[in-house]
């Protein structure tokens, strides 16, 4: 009996350890993402250092090309760093290589802001309707139907933005002032994609607002609109803000819609009618070509990816903070 008990204990412990391993693996993924991005990003900014070593440069054709394209950067990683964050020309794929990432950042910010401008007002109004005014039956059907929007593959949205929305806007609104690939269509369609994120999450927090607060306002003679705008929305503001930040984070990381509909030309502009390139679209563009491992182009991929990672991480932290700081408690 005693021996069997030990066997059983050993087996149970082994199973427990195995399960723990599975769980810790998920943390490993995060560490791996951060490590790969960090390593390749550091390698990118060390290119001038490597290129300054003639023996190394003689062995690596990518370094030779780097020296030919940008002799002014050789031996000067700080200048590369400054160029990356302050200059407005991004052309690592051309023979005259410039590494100012601001155009990609501008494209990302522009398309994301357009998406937010669509998703936040529409999503909030929809959430107010579903939580405050809709009959239960309508709510039960419409909410999942809206959530379908988030389940449509982004390639489908990309196709739709490129082949329907842009021609439609060209024919009926802007004429030829609207480029065939532009920030506006991409942003509009992306806004619809993230709409359910805003509406669903906001609706959840609005429903969590205690009914007594609404009853109190109605007892004072408020109209349904006044209850929604002055009681329910302020009470659920932290959740709404978190949902919006999450939606923004999703928009920043969205790839296929912008790759197809916004374009592949890094453009330092905030004009939504023009072609722009986002960070994600640039990553796709490089991946479509055949970039050899370790080349300059290969490294820029990770430097741009790192920027994206940091941006979305900041957004997630921000949304976490917002919820913590502004949460209303009803006890």
């Amino acid at each position, binding site marked *: 009996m005693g021996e069997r008990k030990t066997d059983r204990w050993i087996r149970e412990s082994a*199973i427990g350890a195995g399960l723990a391993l599975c769980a810790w693996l998920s943390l490993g993924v995060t560490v791996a993402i951060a490590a790969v991005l960090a390593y390749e990003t550091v390698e990118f900014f060390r290119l001038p250092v490597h290129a300054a070593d003639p023996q190394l440069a003689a062995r690596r054709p990518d370094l030779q090309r780097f020296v030919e394209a940008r002799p002014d950067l050789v031996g000067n990683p700080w200048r590369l760093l400054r160029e990356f964050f302050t200059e407005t020309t991004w052309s690592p794929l051309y023979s005259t290589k410039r590494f100012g990432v601001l155009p990609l950042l501008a494209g990302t910010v522009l398309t994301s802001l357009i998406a937010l401008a669509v998703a936040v007002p529409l999503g909030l109004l929809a959430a107010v*309707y579903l939580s405050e005014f809709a009959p239960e039956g309508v709510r039960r059907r419409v909410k999942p139907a809206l959530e379908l*929007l988030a*389940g449509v593959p982004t390639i*489908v949205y990309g196709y739709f933005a490129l*082949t329907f929305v842009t021609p439609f806007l060209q024919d009926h609104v802007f004429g030829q002032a609207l480029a065939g690939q532009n920030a506006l269509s991409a942003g509009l369609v992306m806004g619809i994609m993230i*709409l359910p994120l805003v509406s669903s999450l906001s609706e959840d927090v609005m429903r969590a607002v205690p009914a007594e607060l609404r009853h109190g306002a109605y007892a004072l003679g408020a109209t349904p609109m006044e209850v929604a705008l002055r009681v329910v929305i302020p009470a659920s503001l932290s959740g709404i803000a978190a949902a919006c930040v999450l939606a923004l984070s999703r928009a920043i990381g969205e790839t296929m819609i912008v790759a197809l509909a916004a374009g592949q030309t890094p453009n330092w502009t905030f004009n939504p009618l023009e072609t722009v390139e986002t960070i994600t679209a640039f990553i796709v563009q490089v991946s479509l070509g055949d970039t050899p491992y370790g080349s300059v182009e290969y490294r820029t991929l990770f430097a741009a990816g790192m920027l994206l*990672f940091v941006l979305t991480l900041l957004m997630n932290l921000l949304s976490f903070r917002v919820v913590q700081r502004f949460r209303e408690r009803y006890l």
Partner: protein
Amino acid sequence: MSVLAADLDGRRRLERRRQTARVFVAACQAATLVGLVFLGILLVDVTRDGAPYLRPELLTHFPSRFPAQAGYASALVGTLYVVGIMSLVAFPLGVLAAVYLEEYAHPSPLTRALEVNVANLASVPSILYGLLGLGVFVEGMRMGKSVLAGALTLALLVLPLVILASREAIRAVPFSVREAAYALGATRWQVVRHHVLPYAAPGIFTGIILSLSRAVGETAPLIMLGALQYVPFLPRSVWDYFTVLPIQIFNYVSLPNPEFHRVAAAGILLLLAVLLFLNGTAIWLRNRTTIQG
């Protein structure tokens, strides 16, 4: 001002406020409709573009320079292959990790960090998983741009989703079930294996199928791992090049010839049919196997 006039003024103001409220409610209704109308237009547009190209050859033909010849054979088989291998890796791992977090882990700062991390991973842009796959699987482990590298990358991508869904399902199992089993002398693993998991199975399967449909529609990370313009063969081993449905669609959309856009639209209809089937199965499973508590 007489009492009567003040009263009249108050009534008028009240009427105006009610009027504004009605307009506001209508605006809310309209906003709710926008998303649904958009979805409707999208479906009608894609169907109109793609329906004429929806032929049996679409399933048997390989990519071609001629729109009339072009098909999705290699993409369909590639999707099955990649998603199949992904399932073998991601689903056991995810469910077991969820079991650990719900049934085994003691609350501690470390466990808390693990939980926050899983939630955070779910919001990392998918294209960064592509960079991870490129750096670790394709170059680091020298798998090349193969079926295996693609499947493993997708597995990491859906892992947090599987964990989150499975945890929800496991948490919904009533404690009385566990207590009854423990009372009869079952070990922790026996409780999990024979009672908690069967009870949570419908919820777990629903989560798994939803992750599956996410993986089927995913494009961005795989572009970095296998976006070959032209794969005129079926992958035979896990080391082969591959393409998947969304990427083949992306290739056709990117071509300048508008005829290819129709082939892409037909491919989108295929993709949506697959997703509809998967989601339908998820709903059916949930309804059929839910144990009445």
